[in-house]
Each structure stands twice: as C-alpha cells, then as structure tokens.
C-alpha cells in the first residue's frame, strides 16, 4: 500500500464520520495493510491524527503547565489586592472631600436665603443614598451610521449599548446608570469597526495595545 491509497482510506473514514455514518474511532475501520503502512509512514500517521482531531476522536489532550497556572493565579490575586487597596485609599480620600462638600453645601443653604428671596431654583439630583449614578455620554459623529459604547460595565460587548442620534443629526448620546465608587474604561465603536476613545473624557489611559481607553471615575 502506498501513501495515496492510505490517505484515501483515511479520508473515506473521515467522510463517513462527518456524514454520521461512522461513530467509532478509525481502528476498527482500518485494515491490517493500512496499519502496517502507518507503522512505517509518519506522514500518513500525521494525516490520520489530523482526521481524528477534526472528528474529535483523538485521545490526545493539551495540558497547561502547573507553573503557568500558579503564575497566572498569583498575578491576578496580587492585582486584585492592589486595586482593592487603591480603591479603599480613594474612598478614604473621597470621604474627606465629601465632608468639605457637606460643609460647603450647608454654607450655601444657610447663606442663599439671606442673599436671595423667592424661588431657590434648586435642582434635585440623584438620591445620594443610591449606589447608582447617572451618566450621559456624548459623541459628535455626524457621518456615523451607528455608534455603540463598549466598556468594563458591559464586558466590552459590541452591540450591547447603542447611542441615539440627536435631532440635529450630529451628536450621539446615551444615558446610563453606573455604580458609584468604581472606575470604568470604555471606548466608542463607530459603524461596527472604528474604535475610538471619547474625545470629551476627562482622562485617557493606555489600553496596552498602543491606543487609549477613556476613563470614567464614578
């Protein structure tokens, strides 16, 4: 038996499997002449191995080294702990800022009635007791057919959140609620293929690929 004959036989077995006519491994299907040829020909053995992998009967499985598993888990845990420390430190700083804001707000409340009589023009914000805050993102993209926002809050899933086009046909916007006290990275995707950072974001950070992500700090 030559290589062409052997490969043709393997291909017939492969076709039978793909059409559902054969469900076992090739061992029972291949006759002795083929087995003899395979024992001498690494090229045909490779052909058989590929056929088995396409069908899914290969017993070989890839393994991941335990060192890699340990390295990844160590690095992830260290980064989580670092982010938690950073977040706690920021919350601590934030509580100081909050105290100053409360004092400032109290001063305004006390002094406003003294300065101006009549309607106060007070705008009711989001209930400060809630964990969510309202965010509006806007992008000036008159030529765009579609704009979506992808970010940490939607697992960067394209199509999850589309922006709506304004009446002036220039600006796209979306209103969302995000959790307070968190930091989110995001980008806009224009017409499903052009990824851009938000030009109006107050901060841009390296995305690790030579580009930038916009940053939202809630």
């Amino acid at each position: 038996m030559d290589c062409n004959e052997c490969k043709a036989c393997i291909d017939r077995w492969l076709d039978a499997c793909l059409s559902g006519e054969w469900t076992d491994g090739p061992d029972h299907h291949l006759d002795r002449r083929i087995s003899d040829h395979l024992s001498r020909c690494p090229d045909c053995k490779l052909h058989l191995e590929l056929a088995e992998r396409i069908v899914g009967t290969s017993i070989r499985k890839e393994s991941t080294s335990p060192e890699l598993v340990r390295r990844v888990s160590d690095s992830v845990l260290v980064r989580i702990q670092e982010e938690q420390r950073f977040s706690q430190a920021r919350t601590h700083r934030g509580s100081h800022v909050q105290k100053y804001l409360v004092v400032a707000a109290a001063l305004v409340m006390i002094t406003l009635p003294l300065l101006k009589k009549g309607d106060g023009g007070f705008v009711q914000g989001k209930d400060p007791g809630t964990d969510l805050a309202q965010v509006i993102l806007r992008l000036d993209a008159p030529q765009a057919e579609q704009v979506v926002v992808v970010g940490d809050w939607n697992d960067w899933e394209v199509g999850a959140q589309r922006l709506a086009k304004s009446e002036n046909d220039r600006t796209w916007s979306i209103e969302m609620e995000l959790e307070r006290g968190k930091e989110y990275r995001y980008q806009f995707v224009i017409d499903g293929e052009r990824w851009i950072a938000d030009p109006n974001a107050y901060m841009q950070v390296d995305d690790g690929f030579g580009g930038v992500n916009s940053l939202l700090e809630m």
Partner: protein
Amino acid sequence: MDEKSRYSQSREPMKPGSCDESETVRSILHGDTESFRRIVESYTPPFHGLAKRMLPDRSPENIEDALQEIFLLMFKALPRYDQERPFFTWAYTIALNYLRSRIRKGKRTAKHLASVPYDEDIGVLQGNGHQYQPEDALIASEADRILDQAIRSLKPKYREVFILRQLQDMSVTDTARTLHIPEGTVKTLLFRARQQLRRFLSDRTWISGDWES
C-alpha cells in the same frame, strides 16, 4: 496567610462547572477574595487553550497577559453574575467577549504583528495513560500546528463553535448558552466547520518528510 497554607487550601483542583463553584462564588461575593484563586486555577487551563486558538499573537507573554485580564474582568463582573444561571457558561462568555475585543483592538493597533509560535506546550501531552514515543509527540505537535492554521482560516463563528464544542469538550447546550445561539445553530455551525476543515485537509499538499526537519 503564609505561602504554604495558601496553596494547601487550593491544592484540590476544582473542575470547571462543578458544584463547588457556586459555593466558591458565594464566598468571593462575601469578601473572601482569596477564594478567587480556585476559580483562576480551575479556568486557566481551558482559557489558555481558548486564548491560544483565538489570539493572533500567540507569544506566551501575550497569552498570559490576556489570561490575567480575563480573570480581572471576571472578578470585577462577579457582583453582576446571576447565581441562578450556570457560572461555567457565564465565565466562558466573559472570556470570549474579552478575547474578541482584544482581537479587534489588536487588529486596529498592530495589523502587521507577526505571529510568534507558541511552543510552551509542544511535546507536553497527556492521554489516558498512553505512553507516547518521541515520534508520536512530534506528530502530535505538528498536527497541532496544522490544525491551528486550519482553524484560523475558519470564519469566527465557525471557529468559536469548533473550539468550544470540539477542543474544549463543551456540550452542545453549554456551547449554545455561552455563545447565545440556539442549540440547532451550534450543530449546524459545527458541521460546517468540520466540512471546511476536511477541505483544508484535502487541499493541503503533503510533502513527505518536510515537517520532520
């Protein structure tokens, strides 16, 4: 917690999709960050295979970096995880979404990035107690390389189904849940993926012995 006790706690590997998972997730959500190590340890092998098959840059550094980012994203997304649904498919969805976005961003910023062969696992094979000869290991690594090339020639939707269903041994139901498509579509896509791989195999010109050098 010292180094020894930290590892002894997670010495028993947890199988992705096992019952222990829900308990572990509850612990993490109650503030036991260290329990997340068990999730990372149990999902690193399958996600490693996934990243290796999907990412254009297969250098060990890039794969490892992608794995870290997947798990960080997963940790941050945990409070939004619906505990009524299987954690296993949720975790895979996070990984797939991240890898897709990384591919897109990679295309945008590094279109001409050369693919670096990933060789960490070449020759590291296991198979139901079967002892492989050096030639078998060589054939397996070459088959891996060729199959990888073939898989990369598939359309993304075929590729993802083939990787999950065939290479990651995921059930049709779990593949459907992970990709948010009907089970019938999984079967159709898998059938077409196999047919295309079959054509790849027949179109390939075999020059005996050229891969052995």
